[in-house]
């Protein structure tokens, strides 16, 4: 899961710390925009060999690092389970 953190930090020029916790809403904080989000989804799908549905992508759930990690964990578990 560190790869997700690294990707977001590298791609969106932030560092997660006390002032910017993993639960921060990346859209509301102006860190991620729609195209950045698409890049992220593509990265996750490739990196973890998973596929998100349109509903999952646009559902407005995966807005923080914590939520994204959780969603990916669930996807990976569903695939391997």
């Amino acid at each position, binding site marked *: 899961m560190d790869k997700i953190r690294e990707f977001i930090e590298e791609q969106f*020029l*932030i560092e997660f710390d006390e002032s910017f916790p993993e639960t921060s809403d990346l859209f509301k904080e*102006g*860190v991620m*925009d*729609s*195209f*950045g*989000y*698409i*890049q992220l*989804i*593509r990265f996750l799908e490739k990196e973890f060999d998973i596929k998100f549905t*349109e509903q999952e*992508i*646009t559902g*407005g759930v995966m807005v923080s690092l914590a939520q994204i990690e959780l969603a990916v964990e669930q996807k990976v578990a569903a695939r391997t389970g």
Partner: protein
Amino acid sequence: MCGIAGIVDPTQPAGALSGRIEQMLARIGHRGPDGAGYVVDDGFAMGTVRLAILDPNAGAQPFGDESGRYWLSYNGEIYNYLELQRELEELGCRFTTHCDTEVVLKAWITWGPDCLTRFNGGFAFALYDRKTGDVFLARDRFGKRPMFYARQGERLLFASEMKAFLAVPGFEFEQDPAQLSSILGQWTPLPDQTGFKNIESLPMGQWLRLRGGELTTRTYSQLRFDEGPDVASEGQALDAIRERLTRAVELRLRSDVEVGVYLSGGVDSAIVARLAKDFATKPLSTFSVEFDDAEFDESADQRLVSEHLGTRHHAQHITHADIAEKTPDAVFHAEVPAFRSAFVPMFILSQRTQAEGIKVILSGEGADEAFLGYDLFKETLLREAWNELPDDVRRARIETLYPHLAHYGPDDIAAVTGLYHQFSLEKMPGLFSHELRFQNGRFSTRLLKEAGDPFEAITALVASTEGYAGFSAVEKAQWLEYKTLLPGYLLSTQGERMSLAHGVENRCPFLDPDVFALATSVNLKFDDGFVEKRLLREAFRDRLPERIVDKRKFPYRAPDAAAFAAKRPDYLDLVLSEAELSAMPFVNAKFAQKLANKVLSKPAGEISTKENQTFLYLLSICLLNRSFVRREALPEAKLPRVEKVVNLTEGALT
């Protein structure tokens, strides 16, 4: 074209203000290298640096009336001045010159501020009534010519460019984080913003009066979409477009010096060149910039137009080194933060234009706003209709909308479709059309420690604009373009600030009020808007090469961060050094440094548009801080030959 500057300071006698106004004019001497002139009175001084275009020998400024009561410092051109002169002569006015300056003065004396609605042109002027002491400033309806002012207690300063204020003792520039947030968010300043505290831009279509220490502003011209003529058929529309544009070009060729054309390679400037060529009595000079990089270069199309019309073409090749070398000078002339580097080549091009002996050029600016040339308008139409459209139509439209953006390729269509879905309903009141664009802007505001709400000012502006709520979604998009990107970047940073840096005046036929009014009558009336500027193209189909008529909109851009990464000019320290960055307390130094390092070290392909954009903002904010706030690396001020000095304390009113 000229530059003007002035100062109202009741504490200062005329004698004390002479030196001051000379120094202010010297700071904007590039705008009018042909001569300087000024008028002083107790508590008041104003002057002009002049680029002599009409009746060059008679137009020395400031221009006074016969009685010596009214004095005018005037920048710009009123293209319909001959018609106004005839009208004024019928009312009993007598004229001693063939200059539009005299027409402006007499029109003011005859009609007062109502004269402004009669003017077809790009202008800004200051008028002093010696009898009452009133000072009156005005600016054209589209914001073609600039007018900045600063109020400090009883003192009022005004000038065509803010750099004139550098010459005023005690005046200090301070960057305003709240305005910077707004500028970064919406890409350009709003009509009244400058990026500096306590300096305002007089918005387009407004006048300002200082009377007895009291400042009053009024809007004399609103942007409206319901004042065009009735057009019943497409054939009629095409005839009217040809007729009005031909007239607009003809009016803008009124000049006692040779007029050239800037060719971008697109259809708009090709139309302007075509029409200018029709009126030309000698070979027409055309000018273009070209790049090594195919991503930016349009030289093949520029040459095609030039060859088709038989023009004397001057192509200015622009390299990464040129951009890196000239950026500090160009930013100094622009005076406001810029979101891309494309204005720098225009700075270089105006230098070339001046060297070729051309003082006036025509360009195609304003066509995209009037005739719906930007993808933004199509995107707005699509998002607005989104919830009524079947899936296959949505996807087909998305696929055709942005073929040049990789992330709109077939692989990502599903995801992008989903995102469009999120943007199908208005979230930012009144700003529906620009919500996607403003996402990039929001990213750029991360350069600031406290960005606040970057969109507070623009939201308030549209909410307070009479009639705005009743506009269609596309009209709102147009309105926003006419109030932000067009005046705040295209006409200024990339337009007149760059051309006037080298004494070249630019004129825009597509900003003719009659052309704009016609466009509002015909847009979306005979098509669905998905072929951009279709009517404009059809109107000139037989008069230009087919490849140009059918060319898709190619946004004019230049190498951004790549140019700086390749050349590593010394001034990059401003954005890389922690000490330099922390000297600007409003900047988020950590983010800024991270961004600069990424942008300057990664291959161009790995840098996103918004990162490039944000880097240019950072660099321009730092360069402006260095020259305006810290007053370091300032170019030399140069006063043109003084050709007129009037001291009003030495003569009585006649």
